[in-house]
Structures are given as C-alpha cells and as structure tokens.
C-alpha cells in the first residue's frame, strides 16, 4: 500500500486492534461490510456498530468487517493512487463484499455515504448497479424516513436489527448457495418483517419496525474492539434499556424506540465484570436515553461499583437527573475529579416546557442546583432549544432568567461557572411536532441575539449552534424523494462531512436545492397541513398517527402527558406486548 506516514492519524486505517475479528473469506458463505459514514473516532464510539459487528460475526457462515469514511487527506491519496475504499480487517475493497451496510445516525452524514460508494467505484444510484455490485443496505434511526435515500439504497432495515439481520443473511446465503440472483434475493427479502426494498415495495403494505422484546436474551458484546486511537467515547459501554418513558414532543428517539425495555440489574452487573475483564478499559459508561428512569438504579450502581472500584475503573453516568441519590452516587464514583453537571430544561418558561412535554418544574431545576451546590460542584451546563413551536420572546428571555436564578442559588461570590447552550428546534418524523415549521433564519438570528442581549453576566457563558446546519438538517429529515435528488446534487458539488463545521458549505446546499427547483429555506420552515400524507406514512414504528395528532393538539393547548410508567397514553406500541407496556398491565 502507499505511504500512510503522510496522513493524519494513520491508525484510523490500519485495523489490528485488540478484539478485532479476522476471518478467512474463502471459508464464508457471505461477507458484510459495516460502514459508518463518518471518521473512525466517531464510528468506533457507536454502540450500535459494536453490537452489529458482534452479532454478524457470531454467524459461522458470515464475516463482518468495518469501514469508515476516510479523512480528506486520505481520500486525496486514495483517489490519486486509484485505491478503492477498503475494510480495516482484511483491507478488502468494498466492491468485493456481498453486502455493504450503512448506519444512518444523522442526516448530515448522507453525503458521506455517496462519497464512500464513489470511492469504492460503486455507482451511487441503484438503477446503475448490476449483479456484480454488492447489495447496499441501510438501517439506524434515520431509516424511519427512508425515501430520501430511495434511489441509493437497495434495502432498508427498520428498527432494531439483532434478529432481523440473521433472517436477512440466512436468506441471502440460501439464495447464493442455489446460485440465484441478488435481484431475486431482494424480491424475497420483502417478505421479512422490518425490511423495506424500494424496488419491490408493495404500496399497499406498511413496513413494520422490528424490536427486541427481551434485552436480557439478546447478544451483547462484552468483548468489543479496543481502539488504539483516542476515540470520542473511549470507554466500555453498557446499555441499560431501550426507549424512554418521557415522550418529550420534539424528541424522535423518545417515540421511535418505544416501548421501554430494561435489562435486569443482574444481567448488567454480570456484563460489567465481563466487559472489564475482556477490554481492560479504565472507564465504563451507562448508555440509555434517561439513566435516572432505570427502575432498579440503586442495585445496579452498587453492583457495578463493586466491580469498578476494585479495578480502579471510573463509572460514567450520563443523562442523570440531579437529585439526592445521584449526588450521593457522584460522590462515590468521582472521588478524584469533579466534572461539571449538565441539565437539559430545553425551554426557559414553564409554559413552553408544558408545550414540549418536558415534565420538569422550575422548582425542581432550582432544587437540583441547590443539591449540586451542596455537592461542591462549580460548573453547570444548561441545554435549551430555540424556535420551539409557540415560542415567544418572553420564552426566550425566560432562558436567561432561569440561568440567573441558578446563578443566584450558588451566589454571586461563588466560583460557579454556568454555560448555556442553545440549539435550534428541528422537526423530525414520528414526533408530535413532525408537522411544525422550523423558524426562519432571520428569526433564528433575531432570537439568538435577543437571548444574548439578556445574558450579559460574566459568570454565564453562552454558546449557540450553527444556523445553517440546522436548516439543512430540517430540510432533509422530513424530506421526500426529491430531497434525495438534492442530496446527490450536493455531493456532486463537493459536499461531504457536513456535520464538521470546517467542511460544511451552505452555498453548495442552497444551489443543490435550487437545481431541483426547491428553496432550502422553504423546505426547512415548511408547516405541513395535519391531514397531508407524509413521505414516511408507510413505515409503522408502532405508535399511531392519531396518537401523534392528539399529542400535537395537546401541545398547543399547553397540556402535558404523563410518562409511560405513571399512566399509559395508548400510543399504540402495546401491540408489541413487551417492556413497560406489560409492567402496567396495559394489555
């Protein structure tokens, strides 16, 4: 191979890490390239990738290898030397795999998918591909609105893939053994629940998402790859549960991952010991949408601490509500360093928090601040969203007021540092706000300035998210087939690594929309009439459209909805007959 000495972080491309799985392709029935359309450091941090790598490689007949988006310097070298994109394990070109699967974690990575295909000399449009090309698959949260990638991807998996991937690969390997075509495989695959094949989709049929009913009985890797490079989340990760009981109305994850299904504390404690033995990590993190909602948190923490303390391992607990329990826990686990605390009230006023169904009161927030003060914390991060539906100037100013009230709790003479960060609301499919508009760029700028003008205190630092990336994300995430053409145009103009500020190029995106006779700003701020058909209506994620509509109505009446444990809101997910739906005898 050519000279890796001249690229930044060559270890991104060399593989060979501890726990890497290398198989002999000649002995396999099929090969699967798991592609993460971002850098090694981002992709290797992703728990879903660790799980799928393990699940597929557990099959004796299948080999799964990893592929990441090469950084710009590497891409240049590869193109100059005519080297196609290759896997880390055996350096096999992507084009030689049976199946190339992409994970769709965020819309801003879509241009990287096109670029990775192009770097592999695989035509980006499926109609241009033949039997000699790999099957292009995709899955992950953004696959709930698959039509934007309809012309690129042969086959989507909707929902959790641990089980359905085996059904798909069994079918593929049977068909390959019989010497039948890939096209025949695609046609047959439509019969598998959770699979969407654009070419053979029956318009009368809905594609129903797949879930794992019992997380205690599904493969979970306790021997994940341990990278040499310092990746984004450089620690062992333990998934406590899937789904979220809360139902914040802007949050896509809160709806598409329903219902909440927990692992048993005993399962998790056993996995803690195994994963530490097999990786040697000095840190283990709990992963879930809302750690505090784990029903047996005390047993879990005590059990995990027993293993972590004797090994001098840090326990990291993100997404934690601040209360007496969590502060006690923090004291136990952070004997050495006190990192900052993070709150996400999302909205400044109680009125707007009711609109978005963020069931937390100002008193609760301030009480958390008091507890944090007693716990000796001197750095607090606050996350808010600007441009939420119904937001007024009073709501914007209320963000500054809340920050000041928290500052008052600590006192002006304290060493406290408060950081307020705002992002812009982006309407997402399968949320009650999927019909809502995003505020215009002018409004974004005005509200951000308004907030800034009310936050002049030296002890409060204010950061805000980029305007333009939020606009592109909004325009793509609710996109239809035409938006798919826009994405291809944008890539042709040179867009890639759009989630990296240094590469994001708004002009090119504006042009790409124009080329398709669309206005990016109109697409982003479009209010969709509630009775319109939606591009993702044919996907069934379990919750009903009527439930989303009722949540939409309640939002504008400033009415909240109770969490799944307190009271079932009959969202429709109970038909899967598992998790929190069974706890409450809802069925």
């Amino acid at each position, binding site marked *: 191979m050519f000279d890796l*000495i001249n690229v930044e972080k060559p270890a991104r491309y*060399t593989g060979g890490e501890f726990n890497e799985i290398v198989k002999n392709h000649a002995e396999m029935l099929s090969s699967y390239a798991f592609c993460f359309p971002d850098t090694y450091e981002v992709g290797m941090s992703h728990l879903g990738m660790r799980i799928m790598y393990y699940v597929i490689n557990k099959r004796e007949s299948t080999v799964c290898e990893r592929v990441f988006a090469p950084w710009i310097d590497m891409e240049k070298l590869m193109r100059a030397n005519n080297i196609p994109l290759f896997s880390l394990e055996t350096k096999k070109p992507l084009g030689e795999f049976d199946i190339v699967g992409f994970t769709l974690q965020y819309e801003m990575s879509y241009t990287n998918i096109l670029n990775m295909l192009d770097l592999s000399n695989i035509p980006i449009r499926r109609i241009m591909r033949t039997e000699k090309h790999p099957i292009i698959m995709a899955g992950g949260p953004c696959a709930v609105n698959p039509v934007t990638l309809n012309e690129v991807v042969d086959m989507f998996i909707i929902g959790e893939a641990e089980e359905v991937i085996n059904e798909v690969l069994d079918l593929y390997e049977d068909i390959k053994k019989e010497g039948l075509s890939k096209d025949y495989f695609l046609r047959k695959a439509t019969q598998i629940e959770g699979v969407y094949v654009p070419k053979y989709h029956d318009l009368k049929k809905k594609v129903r998402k797949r879930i794992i009913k019992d997380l205690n009985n599904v493969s979970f890797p306790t021997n994940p790859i341990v990278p040499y490079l310092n990746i984004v989340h450089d620690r062992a990760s333990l998934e406590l549960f899937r789904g979220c009981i809360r139902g914040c109305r802007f949050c896509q994850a809160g709806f598409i991952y329903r219902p909440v299904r927990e692992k048993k504390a005993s399962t998790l404690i056993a996995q803690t010991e195994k994963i530490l033995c097999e990786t040697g990590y000095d840190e283990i993190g709990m992963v879930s949408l809302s750690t505090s909602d784990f029903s047996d948190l005390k047993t879990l923490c005590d059990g995990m601490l027993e293993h972590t303390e004797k090994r001098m391992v840090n326990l990291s607990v993100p997404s934690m509500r601040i209360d007496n329990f969590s502060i006690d826990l923090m004291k136990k686990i952070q004997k*050495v360093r006190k990192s900052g605390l993070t709150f996400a009230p999302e909205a400044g006023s109680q009125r707007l928090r009711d609109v978005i169904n963020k069931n937390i009161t100002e008193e609760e927030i301030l009480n958390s601040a008091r507890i944090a003060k007693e716990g000796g914390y001197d750095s607090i991060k606050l996350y808010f969203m600007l441009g939420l539906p119904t937001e007024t100037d009073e709501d914007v100013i209320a963000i500054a007021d809340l920050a000041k009230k928290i500052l008052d709790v600590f006192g002006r003479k304290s060493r406290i540092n408060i950081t307020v960060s705002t992002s812009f609301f982006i309407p997402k499919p399968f949320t009650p706000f999927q019909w809502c508009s995003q505020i215009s760029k002018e409004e974004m700028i005005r509200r951000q300035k308004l907030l800034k003008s009310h936050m002049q205190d030296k002890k409060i630092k204010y950061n805000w998210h980029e305007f333009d990336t939020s606009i592109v994300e909004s325009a793509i995430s609710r996109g239809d087939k035409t938006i798919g053409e826009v994405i291809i145009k944008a890539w042709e103009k040179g867009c890639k690594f759009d989630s990296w500020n240094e590469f994001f190029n708004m002009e090119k995106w504006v042009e790409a929309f124009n080329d398709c006779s669309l206005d990016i700003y109109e697409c982003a701020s479009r209010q969709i009439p509630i009775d319109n058909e939606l591009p993702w209506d044919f996907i069934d994620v379990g919750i009903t459209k009527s439930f989303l509509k009722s949540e939409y109505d309640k939002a504008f009446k400033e009415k909240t909805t109770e969490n799944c444990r307190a009271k079932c809101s009959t969202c429709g997910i109970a038909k899967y007959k598992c998790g929190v739906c069974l706890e409450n005898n809802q069925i």
Partner: protein
Amino acid sequence: MKTIRFKFRKTEKVKFISHIEMMNAFMRALRRAELNVVYTQGFNPGMRLVFALPLPVGVSSDSEYVDIWFNIEYECQYAADMLSKALPDGFELLEAFSVEKSTLMEDVGSAIYGFKVNSSCNLKKSLDKLLTLDGIEVDKSNNKGPVDILPYIYKIDYHDENSFSVLCKAGAKGNLHPRLLLKALEKYTGTHIEEISINRNKLFLKVQ
C-alpha cells in the same frame, strides 16, 4: 513493591500507534492480565510505568523497554507470561528482569536505526559525504530553527543501495530523530528520498 523491566518489540503491524496510544494499550493489557500494578498517588491516579524512549509514529522497533511497578513480588517470568497473553497482536515481549532502581529514561544512551529507502542518488557516496561535512544543519519539524545533527551521529553502515543503518546518540540529553537524517540526506543531495521503513534495531542502556 517490585519493578520489572520488560524488553519488547513493536512490529510493523503496530508502528502507526503513537507513544501515548501505546502507553494506553499497555495499561489496558495490564488490567486485562489482572496484574497488581502500583498506582501513582495524587489528583489523578495512574498506573506507574515508564517507557525508555518514545518512538516516532511509523517507526518499528526490536528494542523497546518499559519499567512497571507491581505491588506483588511477581516472578519476572510469570508477569511476562501474563502480560504477553494480554498484549494486542504486534507487540512481542522478549525479556523480563527485575531492576533495583529504575532510571530507565536517563539510562538511554544510544540507538541503532535501520533505514530502507528508495532514492535516485548514490546512497553510499551521499552518506560518506554527509560525514565529511563540518556540520549537518536541518530544520526541526516544530519550527524551532535549524539543528546540527552531526554530533549525534556516531557511525553509518551502508548495506546496499536501499538500506543502511546508523548508530547515534539517543535519550533525554541529546537525541537523533531518525527522520531528520533522511531530511539531511535530501537537503545535501538535492534528491527525493522515499522512506520505505525505519526500524529501531537496538537501544543501548547505560549499565546501572
């Protein structure tokens, strides 16, 4: 408490791993091996271990050393076996012996690097000429101005038109970065020298 010195090989397979990444890899291996390592006291406790001399990224080595402090009086062979099993592929333990007092970093005195290159110049002549100069000034990569590397070079052995080795000063009190020699060669011959590989063949430690 016992200090064990391990000699190991960092092969081609892991030559792109940086020094810090390698330290992390060793610490993770020690944890997997469940060896009882001494931790430093203080604000941010870490495992007590010291490597002899950082290796530039992209350079392999047959002669690396690390001193590791243990709370238990392990047999050297036992500790080596356990660590060896836990190390990632590409690192090979060669020897393990106990040391009374660890001054590993200060003990580094000199090193031999083996170079494999592609060049259009007459390598033997160019190397000979280099050593007849009054000084060999090259710019360090960190923009700290030129440095004369001639005093660091003790001996150059020409092998064939693609390979040679250098015995040079190494360690905290003066060290030759092997790539600076290639840079000097490019500068004084006016040709492009393509680095195929560099290997640290030997690292000499002063006798305690």
